[in-house]
């Protein structure tokens, strides 16, 4: 059986988080960059914006273009005809974020300003 297979273990712990209706603000530059990155796959693919632990300040942003996930815990926001998803678990952390796009050789790309963050790290990828 081994030490990890006996009695007394709890069920998997579930994160209890506040769920809010998410609003996102994209700049024109960010919408154009997103359209380019979607590359015509708007019907089948979505942009998922999420937060996970890590980074210098406690949480890291993550952005992925993927096929629409089956998970029912997402909120969908349409931005210029592109579907953007935010998971309910991240909704209170990401509500109201402003997404811009900077075209610089160093540190360019999508940039997020988060009104919920008390602090952010220098590279802009981490907040807390």
């Amino acid at each position: 059986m081994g030490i990890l297979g006996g009695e007394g273990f709890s069920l998997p712990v579930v994160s209890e988080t506040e769920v809010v209706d998410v609003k996102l603000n994209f700049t024109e530059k960010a919408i154009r960059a997103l359209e380019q990155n979607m590359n015509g796959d708007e019907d089948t693919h979505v942009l998922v914006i999420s937060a996970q632990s890590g980074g210098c300040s406690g949480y890291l942003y993550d952005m992925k273009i993927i096929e629409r996930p089956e998970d029912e815990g997402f909120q969908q926001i349409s931005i210029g005809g592109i579907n953007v998803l935010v998971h309910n678990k991240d909704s209170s952390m990401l509500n109201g974020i402003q997404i811009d796009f900077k075209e610089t050789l160093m540190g360019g790309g999508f940039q997020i300003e988060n009104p919920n963050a008390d602090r952010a790290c220098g590279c802009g990828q981490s907040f807390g």
Partner: protein
Amino acid sequence: MSNNTSGEEYYVRSQSVTLLQGSDSTNVIDRVVSTRIIDSPDSHAKDVLFCDYNGRITDIGSIYKIQEKILLLSSEEMGDKTRKTLIDGKSWDEQCDLIIADEAIGRVSLISADFQSIITRMGFEGIDLERNRVMEFGDMIAVKSEFPGGSILDILLPRNQMSDFISILEDAEYSEMSEDRWNFVRLEVCIPSLVDIRGNLPNECGMINLISDNKGCYPGQEIHARLESRGRTVKRLCLLTGEAAIGPGKYRLSNGSPAHITSCESSDGISYAIVILRVDDIESGSVNLDGANWKVEELTYL
């Protein structure tokens, strides 16, 4: 530091025990600790620090990789908060279940000059205990840890087998340590507790070994990197050895410098205390505190 522990003794530790299972478990923990664990081999134990964004220690844990799962032993007082950090930080698409195992798994720490004989008495022969290697014995695991003042053998086992195991220990003439005795032994062996290090920077606690410079960002990393390149350690966690009894609290040295005692214990005319002192006050190797002289040594985590 000398090892004055005598005889064979055991102590049943109170700990927060958490099991993480799923293919992303290592990533979920690695992102929030200061110690690189992503490439730790299976059947290996590694101590880790949890820090806040100011780089200050919030918890200390031991990670055991077993059968592609991770067992995290962390402090009892910060257990729930550390678990919340882990579960809140899991991304929506990561496979990682966090399971509370406080009621399932117990931890017994052994002090002995001969750990091998108790392993043999448990019915397992021909096994060499190596430092930080997770050895599985039936439903139990054993890990030998080394500290500046000596070694500890930790046995993790199902709680429902605890009384049988303690019978084996007592048949082998191990005696149970009281909380005070354990506190004395852990000071003698130089095992800092969370109460000694919480709120301090790792370099102040001699815990640079638990900071991995090559793992990228984690909470507190910017501060740790700046300390590594430009910082000056102003205060330091130290072990005091003397004969006078002293209690925890804030004191002044005879020269007026502050001294903060976080743990202390006396037995048979020997007193140990863990104290935070200014670096300038350590150089002479002794301090006068509360009217008594104490030998002072910087604590270093191996």
